[in-house]
């Protein structure tokens, strides 16, 4: 089981990033060196929520777990003051 997973992950990320998938190795957060995720930065947060308003899992966005925790907090704050939707449609 575990072996299969490693193989799949390493293989895909290394050589064949599937076209059409949202898989990215390095997220914008690391690339632009964003340390403080501001809940007012709607544009940034929007890139981490799906069309229906859900927070995207980090396996799709490529953020670290620490970044994801901060993101989640910021997105929830933004939702609270109606900068981001809880749901769409």
């Amino acid at each position, binding site marked *: 089981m575990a*072996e299969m997973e*490693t*193989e799949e*992950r*390493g293989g895909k*990320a*290394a050589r064949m990033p599937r076209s059409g998938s949202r898989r990215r*190795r*390095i997220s914008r957060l*690391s690339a632009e*060196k964003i*340390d*403080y995720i501001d*809940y*007012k930065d709607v544009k940034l947060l929007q890139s981490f929520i799906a069309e229906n308003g859900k927070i995207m899992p980090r396996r799709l966005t490529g953020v670290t777990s620490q970044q994801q925790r*901060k993101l989640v907090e910021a997105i929830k*704050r933004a*939702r*609270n*003051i*109606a*900068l*981001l*939707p*809880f749901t769409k449609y």
Partner: protein
Amino acid sequence: MRTYEVAFIAAPNTAEDELSKLNSQIEQIITDRGGKVTKVDNWGRRKLAYRIGKFDEGLYTFVYLEGTGKEIAEVERRLRVTDFVIRHLTVRTDEALKRAEKLKSKRKVSLAPRSPDDDFDLDLDLEDEELEEI
């Protein structure tokens, strides 16, 4: 000293002088209790991401302040009792900002770029696979 951000949304039909009155009241509350307003950010009219009550848009104001925490209780109470404030949010920011600062300085010390690290991880994965094959 702690830093806070107080955000609130006023109803879109709020008179301008009422809003500025509330702003100066808030500033008064903060300075009376030994705090300091560092910045007031006025976003003005903005579309809400979802309806609140019967409103589709709101007037956004962000107040940045330094203080001990005593100011916050009174500011929040004032926002709650003010009818035209339809939503408000207070966030304490000093700890998160400090942590962000720390991350930044840590990165400066080890000026190694990110990509080699990633490659290294991948190599390890591949090695594991090879070992299993053998």
